[in-house]
């Protein structure tokens, strides 16, 4: 059984590890077209492009190098990142060569660590390295 609980989840953006991640969610989607003929009882689909998106939540370190770079890129840059890797084991990972930062949400709460959630939309082919 290879089901993993909480342990491994390193996220690397442009070669730099995003530290203190508490959550990482990769979404891979397939766009489809509907080619069901009028009057058919069942739906038939055709394939269009695939897409991927990554959402990560991490403890907010205002002076952390990687977080600072991403914040600067999102606020003052063109929101484009280099490669993104999302590890699902010690050596196995999903990766794409480019992505766009599409969201940057900072949360502060009484009695809790400050957290930042960032979302990325893939701007490249997604690959899996086993």
């Amino acid at each position: 059984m290879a089901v993993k609980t909480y342990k491994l989840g390193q996220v690397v953006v442009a070669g730099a590890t995003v530290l203190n991640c508490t959550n990482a969610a990769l979404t891979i989607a397939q766009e489809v077209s509907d080619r069901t003929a009028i009057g058919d009882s069942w739906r038939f689909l055709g394939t269009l492009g695939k897409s991927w998106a990554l959402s990560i939540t991490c403890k907010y370190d205002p002076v952390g190098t990687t977080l600072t770079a991403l914040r600067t890129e999102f606020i003052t840059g063109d929101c484009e990142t280099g490669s993104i890797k999302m590890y699902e084991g010690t050596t196995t990972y999903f990766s794409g060569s480019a992505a766009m930062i599409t969201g940057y949400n900072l949360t502060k709460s009484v009695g809790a660590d400050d957290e930042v959630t960032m979302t990325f939309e893939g701007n490249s082919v997604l690959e899996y390295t086993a």
Partner: protein
Amino acid sequence: MASNRSDIMIQVLSALAAIDGINYVSESISHWEELDHGKFPALFPIDADEIKSPVVLFGGTDEDMRGLLTVIVTGMVYDAENATQVKRLDLMQKIEKAMVTTSGLTSIIHSVMPTRVVTDKGALENYSVWDQEFEIEYWYPNEDGG
């Protein structure tokens, strides 16, 4: 700021020993009536229960475990003329201040929070004895132990 229980207690002892007017600090608690009067005011810190849990995903960060360590500081004052209340209240404040502001301690932990005070409620003649509890949060690498 990776830390562990041992390093934290060394800093707690150091912070308490630096409080103005303290005559004795030890992790080996004594009964107040068996303690030499010259050792009052005395403080007895002890590392108590601890809750541990993963705080971030493993792999991307060195410090991926969180320890919530309860430290209990037992304070004892003595006054032959029953002026223990003034001494007790003054010392309570100094203990809390020392625990939350001493840089030797705060620099190796994530946070320290005073959580509870339990007193003898005036039951002891000439003495006052009380506990002050603190919750110390620190992070450490899972492979190192805390």
